[in-house]
């Protein structure tokens, strides 16, 4: 009876149109599971035994990606309730805390972000300590470094959005550095060299507090409402898209460069 129902379902046109292989208990079907699924297709069909050991990979790269997905999901949910405008921003966050019984969406988003920073660092540490950046994986290491930078920037831009004292002053301290950028910061070395002094306009500086690198970053001479909107767009649209694109490159390159790193044959002690 049970078998009859099962066969009726799995032999139907609908089932076969979705799942194109039998139950994955044979070698052939196990390969097909991975090959016919776009998400599982990120993997090869088989991997070396040592790469399954937690002691080798620490699972950190995978967890970083998992946390990226968690951040995307919780971030989209938070976007329904948050308006990046001076009058509303703080109150919206307050409402999330006060009016949502048992709400933990903002908590998951915040702690997930901190956790992602940590897992990215540890993933990088693992890749370094197993020498996995060595040829042919040099380029992918570079992509990874950019992804690390994007992770920090994602976290940094998100830090401003609650629009409380912690946020505004952390971003003020962090972005004050841009003031001192060589040549293009108004307190940076060389910025005075760019003054059109030769034209007799010494007292009209070319680089000043309202057109320098920090101004571009903040959308104003200090952290204000323009900064809030700017960081919101960077945080919710621009950097996630850039990161998602580079993650795709990163994963694709892992596959193209020969999968997860494995010991080369030459592990001898003799000096080269």
């Amino acid at each position, binding site marked *: 009876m049970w078998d009859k129902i099962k066969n009726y379902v799995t032999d139907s046109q609908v089932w076969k149109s979705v799942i194109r292989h039998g139950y994955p208990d044979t070698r052939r079907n196990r390969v097909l599971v*991975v090959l016919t699924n776009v998400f599982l297709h990120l993997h090869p069909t*088989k991997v070396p035994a040592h790469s399954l050991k937690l002691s080798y990979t620490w699972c950190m790269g995978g967890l970083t990606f998992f946390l990226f997905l968690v951040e995307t999901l919780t971030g989209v949910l938070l976007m329904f309730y948050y308006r990046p405008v001076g009058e509303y921003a703080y109150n919206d966050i307050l409402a999330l805390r006060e009016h949502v019984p048992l709400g933990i969406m903002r908590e998951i988003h915040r702690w997930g972000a901190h956790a992602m920073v940590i897992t990215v*660092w540890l993933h990088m540490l693992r890749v370094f300590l197993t020498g996995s950046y060595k040829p042919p994986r040099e380029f992918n290491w*570079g992509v990874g470094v950019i992804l690390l930078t994007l992770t920090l920037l994602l976290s940094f831009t998100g830090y401003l959005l609650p629009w409380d004292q*912690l946020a*505004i002053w952390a971003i003020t301290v962090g972005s004050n550095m841009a003031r001192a950028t060589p040549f293009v*910061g108004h307190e940076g070395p060389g910025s005075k060299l760019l003054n059109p002094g030769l034209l007799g306009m010494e007292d009209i500086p070319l680089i000043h507090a309202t057109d320098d690198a920090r101004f571009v970053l903040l959308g104003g001479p*200090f952290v204000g409402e323009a900064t809030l909107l700017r960081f919101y767009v960077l945080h919710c649209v621009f950097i996630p898209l850039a990161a998602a694109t580079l993650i795709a490159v990163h994963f694709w390159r892992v596959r193209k460069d020969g999968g997860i790193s494995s010991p080369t044959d030459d*592990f*001898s002690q003799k000096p080269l």
Partner: protein
Amino acid sequence: MIETLKHCINALAAPTIFLPLVAAAFFLVLHFYRTITRPKVALGILIGAILFYVVSLFDPNFQHIVAKPDNVPITIMLLLCGFCVWLALRQAAINDERMERGLPPLEKESSETIFVWPDLVYIEFLSAILVGVILTLWSIELKAPLEQPASPFKAPNPSKAPWYFLGLQEMLVYFDPWLAGVVFPSLIISGLISIPYMDTNPRGSGYYSFKQRRMSITIYLFGFLFLWVTLIMLGTFFRGPNWNFFGPYEFWDVHKVEPLVNINLSEIIYVKLLHTGMPAHWLPREIWGLLLVGFYLFALPPILQKTVLKKFYAEMGFVRYNVFMMHFLMMMMLPLKMICRWMFNLKYFVAVTEFFFNI
């Protein structure tokens, strides 16, 4: 008795003592990595650290800083970093010992391949669930911080950047923002990206080993564990109002006064040694500092290439060698400046404040 102990630990935590101690511990661990990573020794260190942490929580000042919601991730990071470095060095020790006996590294033991479905997918699924559960519990237990509404007129003291940038903020103690906030971060990124192109050692790829990659691992771990993680810890836990140092059990007193006794290299030369007073123009005033920094950055690489690092240079070639030396010397400027600050109260090597050009 307890108070005396707390005072001792507070005194030991001062950057002048704490950082050299950490550096010494770092090199000791790397040197004796085979002994120190033995499970029993490592477990002892772990239990000691946790005991220290738990007992310290009874101190209100310690608890106040460590239990701040945004500081909890730092404790987690410190524990995870310690664990991961142990795990890597432990496997490196085992592999190094195996390879000395002519055996392949552990990763080479089995050359079989395993189906992704179900084995790998299963691991990924379980670890995602596990981390999801941890994240949910963490979020239920600890509320995300929300302070007073943003006000551009009330600066909190101390004002701190997000915790992962506190290493850079701590660098501001020693360097001006154009170096600590712009040049050094850019060099960290470019240096990291160029690692695969500078490391010409073909061995140690795909398995843990320390013996075969002593130099590269030492430099990387020094940068990561000492110049990044330790400075984050120092910046978060030990820096209070006015960025003054406070021990772990010390109250963050806004009125703590630290004498500003730091002086520039030019003042040491012209005022303290020559007693002539400072030259009016910046060029003769700062020429000695400029020469010193210029020597360090531009003369040292070619000198080393012809003497101590002759073999190294031959392996690396001109471009690799100079890219490496540039990043390495810039990285070492931080510990060198720290030492100069502690020993001679040195503020700037070069202080052309007229053009914001201070090193």
